């Protein structure tokens, strides 16, 4: 076992209460990280800083930037990148991959059901209010059969490792999940800066994402189309994820279009080109549901294509993801995921859900009332983090107050254990040292006809502020390259 006699880790401070991805509870470096640890250890912190700044420059040079809205001056920023990778061993990865596919498939079957017979509601597994009160449930999708029955072609599943060492899913993103271009660019930057290190590991490639995405999208082409024509539909260059849209179009080898580049005639979709109209069969759209067709949804939208939904309804074009998928990634649906998986697949969930106590159920309410101090209490109908109570941050008086609220209106609340995201050593500019920072992981899953693909890697997001659990890039989060090993 390697001891921490490593130049760049000499002042690394470990909080015993946190689950560290590199060091085990005895302070030993975990097996998968040992090679990396000793290779990095041969260098000084100055070498590392030097390489890190070169990697950052390469991001600027490639134009991999995002815009932060609301700043006084709009500034292109790079997504802070950290050269110390996260490593996932093959055994753990196998669970993540199988679990992600299972979840995506279950969500797809759920979407089919709630837009057709709604058996899961009739059987009393999921309450009807979850769909009838959801703004993301589109009545226009009822009875519509998307090509090959696929709704959530692309899913982004956010998982964390809790301090019990197990993976938990926090969120399923099945509208327009973004971030996959960072996964690929992080890899490019890391390989450029540290090929000598990368070369010591048998790591799965991530650059095959675009070709697999295109392959799978082509399996769900509209009926009667021989060789489909695919495009990426973007809201435009002012969208914060525009880089990703252009990157995906470029790497898939397809056109990047805005709404105004397309038009609908006799329920077929065409792209305007200098050689005349060209029929479009598959649209990987990165425009939200409400904006895709001003004649059917938000009439003020200038991002969409008038008549697009009619073309879709007639089966003449594939939209990925299908409109109306958003209903299945609502917070309230998340709490039913274990039941949804069992109902459609007759399988036990592979990835854990954060356990949810429904205060509407008397026995669960009793548990919640007795354990307020160790739970997060959330109102079921509030979005954006309003009204959330974190038990271990409440005073005695506040706990009593919370109990009164729960007893007065139990239907309004759910409760979950307080999750602790694992930490990973991350280089911090201010202190010029490695420090523990919380990380999560977004997994990208693609569903096609009888085929699925999980990108062997993922976006590890890092909360750069000490103690902070929020990993979003708009909130000052960064990212790491994520290595999935073929073997240890």
């Amino acid at each position, binding site marked *: 076992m390697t001891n921490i006699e490593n130049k760049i880790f000499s002042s690394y401070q470990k909080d015993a209460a946190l689950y560290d991805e590199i060091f085990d509870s005895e302070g030993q470096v975990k097996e998968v990280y040992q090679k990396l640890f000793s290779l990095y250890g041969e260098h000084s912190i100055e070498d590392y800083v030097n390489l890190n700044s070169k990697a950052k420059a390469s991001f600027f040079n490639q134009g991999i930037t995002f815009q932060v809205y609301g700043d006084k001056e709009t500034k292109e920023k790079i997504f802070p990148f950290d050269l110390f990778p996260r490593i996932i061993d093959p055994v753990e990865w196998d669970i993540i991959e199988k679990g992600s596919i299972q979840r995506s498939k279950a969500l797809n079957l759920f979407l089919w059901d709630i837009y057709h017979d709604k058996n899961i509601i009739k059987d009393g597994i999921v309450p*009807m209010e979850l769909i009838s009160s959801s703004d993301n449930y589109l009545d226009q999708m009822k009875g519509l059969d998307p090509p090959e029955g696929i709704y959530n072609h692309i899913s982004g599943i956010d998982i964390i490792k809790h301090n019990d060492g197990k993976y938990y899913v926090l969120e399923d993103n099945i509208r327009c999940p973004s971030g996959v271009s960072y996964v690929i660019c992080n890899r490019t930057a890391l390989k450029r800066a540290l090929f000598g290190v990368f070369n010591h590991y048998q790591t799965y490639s991530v650059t095959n994402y675009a070709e697999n995405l295109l392959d799978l999208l082509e399996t769900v082409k509209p009926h009667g189309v021989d060789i489909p024509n695919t495009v990426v539909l973007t809201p435009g260059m002012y969208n914060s994820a525009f880089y990703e849209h252009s990157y995906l179009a470029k790497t898939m080898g397809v056109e990047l279009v805005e709404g105004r580049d397309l038009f609908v005639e006799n329920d077929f979709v065409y792209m305007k080109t200098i050689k005349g109209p060209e029929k479009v069969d598959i649209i990987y759209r990165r425009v939200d549901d409400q904006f895709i067709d001003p004649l059917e949804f938000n009439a003020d939208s200038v991002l969409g294509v008038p*008549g697009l939904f009619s073309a879709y309804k007639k089966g003449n074009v594939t939209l990925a993801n299908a409109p109306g998928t958003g209903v299945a990634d609502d917070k309230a649906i998340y709490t039913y995921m274990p039941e949804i998986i069992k109902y459609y697949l007759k399988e036990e969930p592979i990835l854990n859900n954060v356990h949810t106590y429904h205060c509407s159920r008397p026995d669960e309410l009793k548990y919640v009332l007795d354990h307020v101090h160790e739970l997060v209490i959330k109102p079921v109908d509030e979005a954006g983090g309003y009204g959330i109570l974190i038990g271990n941050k409440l005073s005695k008086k506040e706990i009593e107050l919370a109990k009164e609220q729960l007893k007065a209106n139990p239907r309004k609340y759910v409760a979950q254990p307080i999750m602790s995201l694992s930490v990973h050593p991350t280089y911090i500019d201010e202190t010029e040292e490695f420090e523990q920072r919380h990380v999560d992981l977004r997994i990208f899953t693609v569903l096609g006809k009888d085929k699925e693909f999980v990108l062997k890697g993922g976006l590890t997001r890092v909360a750069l502020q000490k103690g902070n659990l929020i990993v979003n890039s708009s909130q000052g989060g960064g990212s790491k390259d994520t290595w999935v090993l073929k073997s240890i």
Partner: protein
Amino acid sequence: MYLEYTINYCTNNTYESLVKSAFWQFLIQPETNETQELIAVEFKNSLNIPHEFSINGYGFNSIRVTPKKAFKEIHFYASFTLKKKEIALDLIESKLTIEREMNILNSLYFKVDFESFLKTTSYTQLQNNDRNLYLFDWSLSVLKNLQNLNSWVFNYIKFKANTTTVNSTLDEVITIKHGVCQDFTHLFCAIARLNKIPARYVSGYLHQGNGYFGDSQMHAWAETYVPSKGWVGFDPTNNLFTNSNHIKVCHGKDYKDCAPLKGVVFALGKNKTSHTVQVLSQQQ
């Protein structure tokens, strides 16, 4: 016995400045169903722009027009010829007991199947203190209750054009107690849904030969689902069951799903739109 109708629909749109880009979707073509059959359709516009027949998001017939040249003024004319069955009013009370009807309305399967037409929308939202505006008498059947509701709505609101707009909420309608067919229908649907009876908003044409209230535009009424009878049409603007004078175009949760004309027009300055509708009948 059949009635033959000809419906003429015209709309004139004028714009202050030149319009370079526009898209229109008309939801004005009568559907074919058990009581009516569309025989002929004629559609024209003053700029001779080609039009397309399609379906909207709910599967109803739509007509789309996309001009490819700039204009300041455009007129549309549509003419539909239709055969309508004389409807013999089936007022025979349901054979089900009131208790059985209640059981059906309260069953989960029923609520799930009719979920769209049981939920409250922005147009059918009643304020808390208005929820007791009209109470059902559950010693009576569903059909009888709906009939009473129809009369109540008819008497509660006075028909008066131009007091409300297409954006008026029920709140405003209840305050001023005046409105047009759209407002009568929204109020009727809101109270029916409050009582767990599926109700849908219907857009169509009314043959006004008999002196009914409607307007010289399109008409609106409601259809409610009565256990064992199916969808039954009520016209609260005229205190009637729907009959052979009612020609249906489409239905939805409220006006928003059924708006006759949706347009995306990129134009500066003011614009003016006018519509006229004429329903002519010829008994056969």
